[in-house]
């Protein structure tokens, strides 16, 4: 009976397991193997840690690595700061039609591809773009202003792209907080700030953490936004991976970079969970 049930479960799971193995496990194992290969001549390879050594010995790679992580964390923080009031408004204050409209507004940018969205920002921010023209028209500046090709533009793009992924989990958790609990917070002497700190934020913590994880991963793994909006100074880690794979034909180093990115993101997410005292099950479940 027992073994039969187990067999049944196994059979039921097998398509999923096959899927996971084929699409997630095997590519990663393959990538790990590639990253451990060193090219020693035309078409000749040997197993070594040389690629990882290259990564750690080249300050440029480390710098890009750290910069990408720091910028992604900043983008996550900014997204959270903007998304929280928006989500609170949608979940707790807006009613009926306004609410669906607001939610829709968050969703609309995702009806077009990321490329189009990024082009949209380029049209707005470029020297001959909308904002620059508007500033000149309003006589706020003497000449055209270039708002593109800097870190702030990257930040704007990242936050914009990530917004929805923060708003959705936040709205869901905030919705599950009964109004009367918030009212009780006020009734028992709390002011806006203390109710937010002691009641709303602790309650929304799983949503905050899962939103942050998703946004952080999206930012870290983003390629288009930093390269297009950042211009000559973008310097994003995924760009390095892309150029190793595609431009340099150096799959070995690219794979090592990819693995470092995987380790970095896992470490930061793990640290984030530890720091907030959340567990992955609680956050994702």
């Amino acid at each position: 009976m027992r073994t039969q049930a187990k067999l049944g479960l196994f059979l039921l799971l097998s398509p999923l397991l096959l899927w996971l193995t084929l699409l997630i496990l095997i590519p990663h194992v393959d990538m790990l193997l590639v990253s451990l290969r060193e090219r020693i001549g035309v078409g000749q390879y040997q197993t070594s840690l040389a690629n990882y050594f290259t990564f750690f010995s080249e300050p440029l790679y480390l710098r890009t690595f750290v910069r990408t992580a720091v910028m992604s964390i900043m983008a996550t923080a900014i997204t959270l700061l903007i998304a929280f009031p928006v989500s609170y408004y949608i979940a707790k204050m807006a009613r009926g039609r306004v609410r669906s409209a607001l939610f829709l507004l968050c969703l609309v940018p995702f009806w077009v591809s990321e490329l189009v969205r990024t082009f949209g920002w380029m049209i707005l921010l470029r020297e001959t773009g909308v904002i620059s023209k508007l500033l000149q028209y309003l006589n706020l500046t003497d000449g055209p202003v270039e708002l593109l090709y800097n870190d702030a533009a990257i930040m704007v793009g990242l936050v914009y792209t990530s917004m929805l992924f923060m708003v959705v989990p936040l709205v869901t958790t905030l919705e599950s907080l009964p109004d009367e609990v918030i009212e009780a917070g006020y009734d028992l002497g709390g002011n806006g700030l203390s109710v937010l700190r002691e009641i709303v934020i602790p309650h929304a913590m799983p949503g905050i953490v899962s939103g942050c994880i998703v946004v952080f991963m999206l930012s870290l793994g983003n390629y288009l936004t930093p390269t297009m909006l950042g211009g000559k100074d973008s310097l994003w880690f995924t760009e390095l991976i892309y150029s190793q794979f595609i431009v340099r034909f150096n799959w070995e180093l690219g794979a090592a970079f990819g693995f470092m990115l995987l380790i970095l993101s896992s470490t930061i997410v793990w640290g984030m969970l530890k720091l907030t005292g959340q567990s992955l099950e609680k956050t994702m479940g």
Partner: protein
Amino acid sequence: MKHVASAVCSALTIAFVCGTTPASADTLRLLTWGGYAPENVVAKFEAETGHTVEVTKSNNEEMIAKLRATGGGGFDLAQPSQDRIAGPQAEFGIYKPIDLSKIDSAQFITSMLEATKANTTVGGEIYGVPHVWGTSGLVVDTKKAPSVKDYTDLCNAEVAGKVSYRLKRPTLIGFAFAMGLDPFAAYGDEAAYKAVMDKVEAKLVDCKPNVKTYWGGGDELMGLLRSGEIVASMAWDTGGWKLNADMPDITFVAPASGALGWVDTFVLPAKGRADDAAYAWINFVMQPEIAAMITEAAGNFTASKGADAFADEALKVRYQASFPAEALDNIKWYPPVPAGLEAIEGGVLDRVKAAK
């Protein structure tokens, strides 16, 4: 990360497909550049031969990366530049030799065919025949940036903040020539090549504040030039000629140190399944009338003998304006890139990108 995953996925898919269905010779999967397989040509080819054509647009690096991911599968005909054939073939073995007996050599400009054959020979086998050729040099707004005559002029103070170039190997090569160096001569000697590249790196780092942005794609460059945000850029000749049609001040300028000449070829991927269709396509598009149609779409001339007679007059005029006889003689044709040079160039490009 993503790329490996997708590469492995596509490899798997192809493995399944190949394993289960018998090879059918009537679908030609063509991996090429934008403009090299215009719809009218494809339609005509399909009508004449009964084959169908699936076109995938790409660029040199991605073509090689795609073929490398599948070990030379997934496509039946590809069109990398002639300098990017020998190296990858030696390293990854992603192509198969071309059977010249199946190609109508009479349709080719002989000198170009011979040069390409020489450049794409690995281990005594020939891997490529020429198709489209062109140059890269400078696209300049001649009114606003009259001083830009060579690559290094992009670093002049009067065009500060108003120039652009690609952060790719043609820029490194172009700057090297403009600085009086000869990178092609140093191709065979890694140390010498590194020395050349170190000088170029220093120049590019110095020049960086002058640059508005490094352009990534042709459309981006067109936008920058059209809007006047930049007045000079390193670019392909066709880009300059296209803009010239709308904005007479902007045109392609062959740099004083010489434009860089490239030839895009036909190669057969190692695991291609429709060689007959591939040969049919090559012979078809090399006919002068068809080649002229491709010139019309791509903006560049082909290695087809006699196609000039069918080419657009306006294009010929622009071509002649950009290339006086001495400029034509001064074109630096890319020799095959030895395997391993990309790593040196890659380091330079990364450091330039990271420089403040």
